[in-house]
């Protein structure tokens, strides 16, 4: 009797506002959330070099300047973060409870959950299945790079990533205005948001958004810098933070910062200036070629095509661009997790993507390198080719159907 009642409680599906939820869904959701929180709690005391070298002095400077919005008026020796994140740090600096490190990690953890919830919503909007959506939620929360990035390293890459996931959610639902607003917010936080800019251009070419929607990027950025401007900072300096970052002024000492990209094949320690410039130009023209190939073909954007296009373009950028850090593929990590819930046959994609990303994390955090990074580079390249081949095959097939042109066969 009791057994049956428990079984019913766990397996019986109940309808709440047209959504069917079983007891195991709730149970699973709770377990995943608790485990995810526990994992982050277990890592809370780890202090990474970045924190000591950058974040701690920044927070101290913000505190000296008064904290909060007032703190944004502080004069930094060097800082390459934009106002929105500095504002968070500034409030952290005057927070009366917990220490700075824990508060910083707490902020990232909140955004871990925001990203996981965005993933949940994306998968639910496509599959209409709560269980799958919870799996996706778990995928983000338990991904090694996501766990490590915020709660171990105290980095904030998940903030812009979560906003991009929300942007993707709205773009997939055909709502470009909120989609581009979220993309703009992500841009206000981090320059790496632009890794996906070519993808949004493709969406524009295919009529999924309008040119005017791109104005949300500068608009959100401008809104983001207002507190610092109000606090007395020079507006021009605030608007040109990204120019300083793009120059790679702080990262010039290596062509790749433990990220398994093309520079691991040719050496990361010589031709620092020559290859840096050449690499940027090469990336730009490589993206142009990919954009060109996608723009000239007529095709319907399916869910898998959508995610793989975004993945390929993001991976192209981090693969060719110089000065990439080990954390910069976080966007590719979450997009690859999304792919598995759109096409489970691609289960190997997130495994390899995260494996490649995490190799750099291990090198930075644990100072160990079990396998040479160039091995991961080949794995990463293999994935890019897999995405490229899928796009080629799908688009060519669609073109054959639309205009009967078979242009990939050799005519002798």
């Amino acid at each position, binding site marked *: 009797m009791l057994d049956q009642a428990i079984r019913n409680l766990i397996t019986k599906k109940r309808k709440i506002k047209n959504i069917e939820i079983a007891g195991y869904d709730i149970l699973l959701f709770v377990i995943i959330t608790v485990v995810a929180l526990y994992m982050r709690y277990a890592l809370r005391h780890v202090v990474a070099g970045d924190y000591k070298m950058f974040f701690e002095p920044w927070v101290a400077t913000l505190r000296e300047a008064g904290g909060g919005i007032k703190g944004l008026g502080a004069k930094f020796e060097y800082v390459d973060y934009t106002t929105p994140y500095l504002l968070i740090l500034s409030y952290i600096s005057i927070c009366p409870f917990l220490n700075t490190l824990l508060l910083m990690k707490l902020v990232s953890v909140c955004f871990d959950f925001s990203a996981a919830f965005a993933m949940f919503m994306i998968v639910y909007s496509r599959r209409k299945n709560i269980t799958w959506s919870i799996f996706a939620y778990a995928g983000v929360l338990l991904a090694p790079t996501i766990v490590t990035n915020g709660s171990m390293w105290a980095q904030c890459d998940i903030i812009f990533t979560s906003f991009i996931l929300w942007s993707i959610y709205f773009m997939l639902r055909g709502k470009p205005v909120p989609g581009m607003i979220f993309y703009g917010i992500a841009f206000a936080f981090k320059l790496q948001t632009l890794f996906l800019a070519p993808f949004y251009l493709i969406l524009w070419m295919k009529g999924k958004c309008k040119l005017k929607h791109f104005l949300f990027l500068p608009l959100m950025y401008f809104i983001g810098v207002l507190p610092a401007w109000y606090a007395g900072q020079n507006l021009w300096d605030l608007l040109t933070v990204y120019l300083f970052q793009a120059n790679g002024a702080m990262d010039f000492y290596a062509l790749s910062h433990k990220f398994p990209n093309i520079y691991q094949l040719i050496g990361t320690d010589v031709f620092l200036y*020559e290859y840096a410039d050449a690499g940027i130009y*090469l990336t730009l023209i490589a993206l*142009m070629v990919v954009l060109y190939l996608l723009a000239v073909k007529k095709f319907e954007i399916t869910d898998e095509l959508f995610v793989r296009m975004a993945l390929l373009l993001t991976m192209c950028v981090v693969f060719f661009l110089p000065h990439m850090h080990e954390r910069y593929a976080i966007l590719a990590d979450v997009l690859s997790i999304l792919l598995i819930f759109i096409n489970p046959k691609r289960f190997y994609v997130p495994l390899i993507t995260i494996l490649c990303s995490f190799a750099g994390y291990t090198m930075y955090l644990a100072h160990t390198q079990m396998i040479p990074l160039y091995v991961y580079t080949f794995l990463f390249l293999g994935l890019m080719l897999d995405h490229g081949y899928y796009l080629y095959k799908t688009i060519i097939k669609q073109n054959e159907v639309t205009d009967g042109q078979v242009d990939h066969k*050799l005519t*002798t």
Partner: protein
Amino acid sequence: MDKWITNLLLNPITFGKKKIKIALIDMMLAVFTIVFGIMIRQAVISFQSIAADEYLEVANAFKYGSMVFELLIGVVAGLVVYRTTKLLRRSLLAFTTAFLLPTIIASGAMFGLLDSLHLTLLLLSLYFVYIGKANIGAIVCAVAIWVHPNGWFLVPLFVLLFLLERCQFISLISMILLGILKELLLNRGYLDQIPIYSVQNMYQLSRNSENLSDYAPNMYQLIGVNEFVNQYTKVGFALMIVAVCIFVVYGVIQKIGVEKEELLGVTLFFSIFIPFFLTGMDARSFLFSNLVALVIALIQPKKSYYLIGITILIYSSYSGVLRGETAIPMVLIAIGMFVMLILSMQDVYRMKAKEEDRV
């Protein structure tokens, strides 16, 4: 507004008597290719592969001159692709890829030895063979041999074409004799005053390499580059000659090289095979195979693995010369090239088998 812009970009405009249709986006790609190609070269042009003062005087002329020939490589690659696919966009992509190929860029702007000249000639020679004018191709190949010894890599193809009655004996023998004459003149020092030869000579001296292979991803990286240099040089050369003869005879029996597809396959095979077994090769010796792989990739995108693989392998070898050591062990790069060689051999065999099945 959005529609108007996308239409402006994508809708083709008709040009000329042949009614060639080109869209604005195509023209933009061509322009950006040239602009970015030049910018990339400009970024790395300061590197000097030879420290000698005599070279520094002519370095810029060589490097900027190389750019012009690299553009020509792009054009010829585009022509070969257009001849096969009749797709303008595909040939534009061939141009773009060729002009932006990192190995070609580094060869011209960093090494600065005007490799692009003999590569242009070799590709042009292949183009003439491709359009059925093998005799002109042989003459162009002879010029390529005069410019650089790597021109010899295409000779086995002409021998094969002669035996398959696609090329005349007089063209073949003229090409070979001209090549031998050049080697004789060069060995006796008659050509030393000509800049291209003096620079090639300066480069050899600057490398001061007594090894069997100067960072060329070939067989000698697998067996050691320092030992038995004199013996292996003779044995390697003899082995290569015999192996080439066997492949040529096999090609004649199987009539390989009649179809265009086979022609590219055989050329790729020879351009990998010869530098793989020949001693004294350097990192740039596989550049012609890189270009042939590019053409193949643009004609048959499913075979892009040749282009990607060979490009990575060559550039990884370059880093040995450019920074003193390779990031990936040279032995692994050589194994990678060996895999490419096996694949190209298998490809030629499969092409023939497929054709026989059709018959």
